[in-house]
Each structure stands twice: as structure tokens, then as C-alpha cells.
């Protein structure tokens, strides 16, 4: 549980403990969070994006790059758009605003722990926008024109962004709840994969440039 606000940390930790989760560590600092995570290997990290020492996005990135990457549920008070998108691209698989109710929160934790993506309508809008941005920009290389959504995925993501629950989406599109879940999950996985590929490509380009120079 990473949150610099003691009141929140305790409240959320209590909620989680009551729901039967084991809290292995709580901290209010990003760097410490990365150190602790490496030592205790949590299955799930609940991460506030606004931390005093390190941007939450960096913590998400660090957690994603660790040997045993935990699942990350981002919990943010201010809903900073870009930060949320960056955190999700860096590997966080869920996002919730802090004003969500306890039931919503516990449900989100459960789904994140199960490996499902937890989307708010706001996050779905951001992810949709990101795919459109990637599709609209000039291709960096001919063989890779960035990740694309299938029509069905776009449809599902738009419905999420319009505030429909997975159950409602499943009914409307005549799909199983699980299938809707998978579609949402795919939109996120593709984006994260693309992000990792881009990072590697960037690293290689940098490395080659250094060798040349």
C-alpha cells in the first residue's frame, strides 16, 4: 500500500485486512516502495500517483520492470489525466479515483489481483484517445504502425467510457461477461506491450548512437 497520506493508508489497509487480504507493507514514499517491493514481493500494489519523493508513474514503471512484477492498482485523488495514462502504459492494470466507495474499491482490488483490467470511464476515454493518437501519427517504421484496436475492442472500450458496466456491455453486445473482460484486458495489454517495445527500441537506438559516436 503506497500512499503518502497516513489517514488513507490506514483506512485502506484496514478495509483490505477486513476483506481478508494480507498487508505485507505500507509506505508513503516511492523509492522506499520500490525497495520494499523487491524484498517482500507483493502480489498487488495499491499505488497513489502523488508521492513526495518520486512521481507515482516512476514507481509504476519501476514495479513493472522488477523481477517479479506485482499487479498495480492506481488510486489517485486528483485524476491527473496524463499521469494515469502513463502509469497504465507503464504496467498498472487498474485505476480508481479515491472517491470510489469501499465496495468499488474492494471489487477493484479483487479484479486487479485476478489479473483483470480495472477501468473507469475516464481511463477508457484516455486509452481510446491514445490508440487514436498512435494511429494518426506517422509510422516510425514501415513494418510497425503501432498497436490497433479491433472493431469489437473499440466498441467495448467506448461503452466502458460511456459508463456502462461490464454486465450491461455483455447484454448489449450479446457476449459473455468474460469476453467483455478479455476485450478490455486486450486493449491494455497491447498498449503496454507497445510501450515496452518502444522503450527497447529507444534503448537500442540510444545504444547504437553511442557506439557510432
Amino acid at each position, binding site marked *: 500500500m503506497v500512499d503518502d497520506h497516513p489517514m488513507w493508508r490506514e483506512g485502506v489497509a484496514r478495509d483490505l485486512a477486513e476483506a481478508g487480504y494480507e498487508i505485507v507493507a505500507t509506505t508513503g514514499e516511492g523509492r522506499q516502495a520500490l525497495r520494499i517491493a523487491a524484498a517482500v514481493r507483493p502480489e498487488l500494489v495499491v499505488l497513489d500517483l502523488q508521492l513526495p519523493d518520486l512521481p507515482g508513474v516512476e514507481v509504476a514503471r519501476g514495479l513493472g520492470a522488477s523481477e517479479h512484477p506485482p499487479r498495480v492498482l492506481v488510486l489517485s485523488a486528483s485524476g491527473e*489525466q496524463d499521469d494515469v495514462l502513463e502509469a497504465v502504459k507503464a504496467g498498472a492494470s487498474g485505476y480508481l479515483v479515491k*472517491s470510489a466507495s469501499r465496495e468499488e474499491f474492494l471489487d477493484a482490488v479483487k479484479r486487479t489481483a485476478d489479473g483483470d483490467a480495472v477501468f473507469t470511464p475516464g481511463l477508457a476515454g484516455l486509452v481510446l484517445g491514445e490508440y487514436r493518437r498512435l494511429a494518426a501519427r506517422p509510422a516510425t517504421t514501415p513494418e510497425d504502425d503501432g498497436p490497433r484496436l479491433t472493431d469489437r475492442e473499440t466498441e467495448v472500450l467506448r461503452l466502458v467510457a*460511456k*459508463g456502462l458496466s461490464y454486465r*450491461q456491455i455483455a447484454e448489449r453486445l450479446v457476449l459473455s461477461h468474460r469476453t467483455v473482460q478479455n476485450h478490455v484486458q486486450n486493449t491494455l495489454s497491447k498498449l503496454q506491450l507497445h510501450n515496452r517495445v518502444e522503450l527497447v527500441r529507444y534503448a537500442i537506438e540510444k545504444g547504437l548512437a553511442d557506439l557510432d559516436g
Partner: protein
Amino acid sequence: MGIEGPFWRAIAVFRIASVVYAAVLLLRAGGYAHPVTGWIVIGVMAFWTGIATLAYAQPGVRGWPLLVLDLLTAVGCLLATPYVQGSLATPGTMPITATWVAAPVLAWGVHKGRRAGAVSAALVSAADLWLRAPGFDLATVPVNGAVLLFMAGVVIGHVAQLAKQAEARMQRAVEIEAAGRERERLARGIHDSVLQVLALVQRRGAEIGGEAAELGRLAGEQEAVLRELVRSGPRPERAPRRRLIPARRPASAAPQDLADLSDALRRYGSARVTVATPAEPVTLPRRTVEELVAAVGNALDNVRRHCGPRARAWILVEDAGERAIVTVRDDGPGIPEGRLAEAAAEGRLGVSQSIQGRIADLGGTVSILSSPDGTEIEMSVPSGLS
């Protein structure tokens, strides 16, 4: 170094060029009457040029002692002219120092302003005129030199003052901007803490129930308002580089007046209305944005009227390249089939009609989808960017 630096470098170049010019004049005149004295004076000038160039480059050394010494050296060299040129000097001949005497005048002007420039020009001109005093006659004495000296001292002094004022103002603007950024940074931290507390109150209030639930609901509303404020506030790290001093021209004078649709629609965000947008701004002509914002406002009014104040609504903004799509969905009971057509047949302009009117004016389309999940109004308009 500051803004004075370039002036001092320019004066140093002027001094060096003037010394060379004076030396060339001395050579061409065959050394005048007393070549040895002449070359000694040129040597003094060259030596002082070196000293002055080094001294004026140090901000700490610049000051009255240096300025006075500079002026005295120049006047001294100027007054040595009769000992070099002797009686051979004909009226109108350049003194041995040639243009070099203008250097201290420029220095006074740059460092102390146009009045000091004028005073030093007067002193040098007085020495120059005194040299020619024996045959003093306004018709033969070239007043040109004095006038040029005055102009140089005053104009350079004026320009240097203006430059220094501009630099001071720039400095102030930079400081103000830095202070503003710092305040913004502090405010972000404070806002975040307040948001946390509000969110906590909302959450715990709802759990406790009763009057606490009402408090929680109020906290939740304020939380949504503050969150919106924080989000739509200036974000220097993403915003394009702002000018330090804002342009005088209002933004509406731009060739095409644009606005960010997402930003404009986020103001509708509240505890009951969720706004989903792309991270990048959705830039459209301002009029299109205003019409869309009004249409969304109509749609939200409609939601409140037909589904009650507790109904929730979602706004989705999408940028599809040539088109911008805004969808407003509510979780009300939906519109009974045929209700829209019925209202139109009765000649009543329902809210949905006024939405359709606005969007049609923009060359866009509206589709209304009603289901048990609620009503969806999708507005699609051409982005109209040239």
C-alpha cells in the same frame, strides 16, 4: 555580464580600430613635426586601450574612478596634439587622437546614461575647441566633431538605458513566472491533500450513514469541483512554451480561433457527471466548441428533467481526426418509443430538437439511442480545421 556586456565589447572594438586609424594617420602624415612624440602618444593610447578593455570587462571595476581616468587619459592625449603636430597643423586637421577621444564618451553614456554621455562629450569638445583657440573663428572651426560627440554620447546613453530597463523588466517577469510556478507546485500538493480528505469524508460518511452520509455527499461534490479545478489548471510541463511577457494582441486576433473541446466539457464534471476525454487536447474552432458545450448542457438539463436529480450521466469526447464525437449517456429509464416523434408532431421543440438544430448548424449529425440502460445522445461534427 548582463545587457552591458555587448556594449563594452563594442566600445573595446571601437577603441582598437581608433588606435589603428590614428596610427595610420600619423604614418601618412610622415610623423608630423615630432614623430617620436607622436609615436609615444600612440603608444600611450594603445596601452590605455588594453587597460580599458580589460577593466571595463570587470563589472566590479566599472565606476567613476575608471570613467574619470578614462576621460582624463583621452583628453591628455588630445591635448598633446600641438606637441606632435607643431605649427604645421592646418585648421581642420584631425588631432593626433583622431576618433579615439569618443571612446570615453561612449563609456560614460553606456554606464551612467545619456546625461553623463552629454557631460563627457562637452568636456572632450571643450578640450578640442581650446586646442584650436588661437585661431578661434566659428567659420573655420569644425563644430562637426563636437556635434557628433554629443550625439554619440546622448544616443548611446539613451539606448543603453533602454536596454538596461528592458533587461530589468525581463528579469522581473522571469522572477514572477518562477514564483508563480512555485506557487502552483505548492498548490498542487495542498490540493491533493484536500482532495484526499474530502474523498475520505465522502467514503466514511457513506459507510456510517444518516447525517454523516449527507456530509459525505457534500464532501463528494466539493471533491469533484476541486478535482476539476486542479485538472483544468495550467500544467506547465505539458503546455507549449509560454511567452514570458504575454502578447498584447488578444487571442481572438489569431487567424483561426481555436479551443480545446475536452477542457470546455470538463466543467460539467461533478459527483454525478463523469467526463472521459483523450489525454491530448481536442482542438476545434471556438464556435464549434461553444455550440457543442451548449448542446451537451441541453442534454444534461434533459437528463435532470426526465431522470431526476440523482441520475448519473457520462460524457465521452473522442477525436476521430476529421470529426469530433461527443456522447452523453444517462442511466435513466430511456425514452419511450415514439416519444420523440410524438413531441415533434405536437409541434413542441423538445430539447433533443434544439440539440439537433445546433449540431446541424455545425454540419454534424446526432443519433439518439435509447435502451433500458439509459439514453445515449451521440453528436458528431466535422472538426473544420483548415
